[in-house]
């Protein structure tokens, strides 16, 4: 049986794909990779469909042993990564021989990296997806983050031509990230003083998780909290709870919320938000819906023309 064995699980390593769509009506979130951009590119490195499963690795990575020949792709933030104790670069596909050990260590910038395999994981789907959602223990391995001595079985490896991520797709992660955002449905009830503060820096809290990224250090308030009615929310929705510290909802977020919605992160920038490490800074830049759609269109064309990936398939 083709297998990887988990010698060290890392801080929080889970299986994620982008296929849990259509279950919000039962209260089940989409889950999926926090950074879809890097997930898609990791899958490209091994020639798999962009929705396919990868391992999402957070801040401190796993150590894995392979008992079969395969090809892997690693893409995302920079992690100190070794193959059989030799330091390796993360932006290309890598051929693996049976017996090899991959050690993805500490994160050097950003926060997340995605590991793809040319072989399919042999795991049970839950709600059409392999995504781990540990609140109700579905997807992944036993519905949980990876643990020491877990193993994942794989189907047969496909032959893959080694690829390298083109320079124009690589990202740099800075101490201060500027994130584009569209005005939210409750933008009009933000107090005048808070509107001015919206352009200033926020700190990213270490209490962030797959449900949401919490901001602090720049409190905001709304004029009339009581006028807010529950409405639907999604990944990228910026909520303002009563305490005044905004939350950016992420992959495992609930689908409805009663807090004021001050903004919605432009779709193409959500992946950047997911890579801002705790205690780094974030600044908002407001754009229109039309501008956000142009950015999506630009990204679509770039993926299509340079990599042959159809993001609307």
């Amino acid at each position, binding site marked *: 049986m083709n297998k990887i064995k988990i010698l060290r699980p890392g801080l929080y390593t889970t299986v994620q794909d982008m296929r849990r*769509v*259509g*279950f*919000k*009506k*039962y*209260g*089940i979130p*989409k889950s999926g990779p926090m950074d879809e951009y890097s997930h898609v590119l990791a899958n490209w490195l091994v020639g798999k469909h962009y929705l396919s499963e990868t391992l999402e690795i957070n801040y401190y990575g796993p150590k894995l042993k392979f008992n079969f020949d395969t090809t892997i792709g690693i893409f995302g933030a920079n992690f100190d990564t070794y193959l059989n104790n030799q330091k390796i670069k993360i932006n290309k596909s890598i051929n693996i021989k049976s017996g090899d050990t991959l050690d993805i260590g500490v994160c050097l910038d950003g926060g997340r990296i995605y590991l793809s395999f040319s072989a399919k994981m042999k795991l049970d789907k*839950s*709600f059409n997806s392999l995504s781990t959602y540990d*609140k*109700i*223990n*579905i997807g992944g391995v036993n519905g949980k983050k990876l643990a020491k001595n877990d193993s994942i079985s794989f189907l047969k490896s496909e032959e893959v031509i080694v690829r390298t991520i083109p320079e124009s797709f690589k990202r740099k992660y800075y101490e201060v990230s500027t994130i584009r955002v*569209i005005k*939210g*449905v409750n933008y009009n009830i933000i107090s005048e003083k808070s509107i001015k503060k919206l352009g200033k820096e926020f700190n990213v809290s270490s209490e962030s998780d797959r449900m949401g990224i919490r901001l602090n250090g720049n409190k905001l308030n709304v004029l009339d909290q009581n006028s807010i*009615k*529950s*409405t*639907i*929310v*999604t*990944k*990228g*929705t910026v909520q303002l709870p009563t305490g005044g510290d905004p939350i950016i909802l992420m992959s495992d977020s*609930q*689908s*409805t919320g009663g807090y004021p*919605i001050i*903004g*919605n*992160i*432009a*779709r193409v920038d959500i992946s950047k938000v997911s890579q801002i490490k705790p205690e780094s800074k974030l600044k908002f830049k407001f754009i229109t*819906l039309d501008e*956000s*759609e142009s950015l*999506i269109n630009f990204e*679509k064309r770039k993926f299509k023309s340079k990599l042959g990936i159809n*993001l*609307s398939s």
Partner: protein
Amino acid sequence: MIDNLNIIPSGDSILIIKSLNKITSNKLNSTVDKISSSNISEIEDILILKDHIGIFYNPYKSTYKKLKSKINSVLSDDSIRIISNKKKNWKIPICYNSELALDIENVSNTLKINTKEFIKKHIKPCYDVDMIGFLPGFLYLGGLNNSLSLPRKKVPRKIIPKGSIGIAENQTGIYNIESPGGWNIIGRTPYELFDKNSEPPIKIKQGDTITFYEVKINEFNRIINL
């Protein structure tokens, strides 16, 4: 089909349909049935809230304006066959024993009624399933007797057991998985209404109705051990 419908965006991946007039949940339901029946591929999910509809869509497959005009033409097309689900009434056992109903005594005190009166008032209505969400399988039920309305607890509980039935504001709700939460817990059902291993994981649908019947602790334990 419905006059004065207003479609507005919320970010680049959500579209909200509101009515300028007062709208009944039946009308919201039939609007959603019509949109669902037309199988628009960029729509990922549709939720019905108190007075509006929320649509999640994939912005890589459509722009807001294109989707809005598609929806408008679907809603004005009378030839679309609406696949509408029959609304069901569910009879759900509830146990008000204070071992399970963690807040029933406090709640009765706050409302200045005795527990018996509380139970009488809580068990009487036929509740509407307003929404499913917030947590997997969480049921928001409308139709709570106004005199039983009270705010969420100031400090949420870290663990609320599966099956717990709570009150917050003017709704009663059922926690179908164990989770943290701030509702005042006034009862528990022995039924497992949410099953992550089946699809759909919950058979009760938004728009259905629920009536409770009381079971004592012995009966609760008997059902839970079945």
